[in-house]
């Protein structure tokens, strides 16, 4: 087995779930995305984690604020397009310094078939910077867990906003024809 094969075999969604467990995440809000499917399944199967499916991503920003007010840690899962739905609600996290951990699967940046994903995908990082969020980007499976740990520290240690971007090459191409 080559070293490359070992890296590719890393089950990064499972590592993210384990990171959530170590961090004591108790509420996970999400708008489903194929790239988050396995992590969502793991959270749904865990009786210690409340999975909260949302109608729009901005609900998750408010959910996480409420969770923190009540003494619980939350995480928010979304696709890159969802960040655009959050912008005004992020002022809640900034005005009150609520911890906000976002895991964002990227679209529109690598062998993207759907050009409609590009306008929002291409401005995810600048938007996050403008919102004073700390940005971590994982491109390879072996980077995911370490960066997730750092994001957790930033968020709950410093009461800040952080986003872990999961690059499209990590997730793989969406299959359009079956």
């Amino acid at each position, binding site marked *: 087995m080559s070293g490359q094969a070992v890296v590719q075999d890393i089950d990064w969604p499972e590592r993210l779930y384990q990171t959530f467990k170590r961090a004591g995440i108790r509420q996970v809000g999400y708008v489903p995305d194929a790239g988050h499917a396995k992590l969502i399944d793991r959270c749904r199967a865990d009786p210690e984690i409340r999975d909260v*499916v*949302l109608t729009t991503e901005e609900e998750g920003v*408010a959910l996480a604020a409420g969770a923190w007010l009540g003494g619980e840690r939350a995480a928010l899962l979304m696709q890159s397009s969802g960040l655009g739905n959050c912008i005004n609600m992020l002022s809640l996290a900034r005005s009150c310094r609520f911890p906000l951990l976002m895991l964002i699967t990227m679209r529109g940046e690598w062998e993207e078939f759907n050009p409609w994903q590009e306008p929002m995908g291409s401005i995810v990082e600048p938007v996050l910077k403008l919102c004073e969020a700390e940005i971590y980007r994982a491109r390879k499976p072996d980077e995911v867990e370490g960066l997730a740990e750092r994001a957790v520290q930033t968020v709950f240690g410093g009461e800040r906003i952080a986003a872990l971007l999961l690059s499209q090459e990590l997730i793989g191409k969406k299959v359009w024809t079956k």
Partner: protein
Amino acid sequence: MKLERRAAMATLLADRGDDLLVVPGLGSTCWDLAAAGDNDRNFYLWGAMGGAAMIGLGLALAQPGKRVAVITGDGEMLMGLGALGTIGIQRPANLAVIVFDNGVYGETGMQPSHTHGRADRTGVDLLKVAAGCGIDLCLDVADEAGLADLAGRLKGLNGTLFARVAIEAAEPPRVLPERDGVVLKQRFRAAIGV
């Protein structure tokens, strides 16, 4: 005769108890809450329009042993209507979402909201929306008796509750609470010991 908003808020919060946590919407309901008496267990909103019910949901899930009341306006609720669907799925037994519905945007000059024409069926009926979202107990509060009933149910809250309170379209003088978000957050957490 529609209810007066400040009196309605005072009735709902009379002898509130330390286990009641309150999240208003931004604007008029925030001033109503402040006017009813400051409390560390209030989390006043000065922004985040459309977010009040979801803040209440996250809080209710985190604190199942306490009662959470979101008391917001029709405009704020309309901006986050999807939250009613999300709450209908989660159904925490300790969450009440109460909408002071006057059919207008009071802060900005009394422009009609989507609920304005509800009485003659040309507007949005938030009770039907909430019921359609799977919230079992949806109360139409239109008079003092209904308000007293709601206050009683809030005291013994044991199931997700939605209430529309028909209030008159008046703007009493603003009563402004603390507006530093970090202070509001810290004092709230300290008050409930987290």
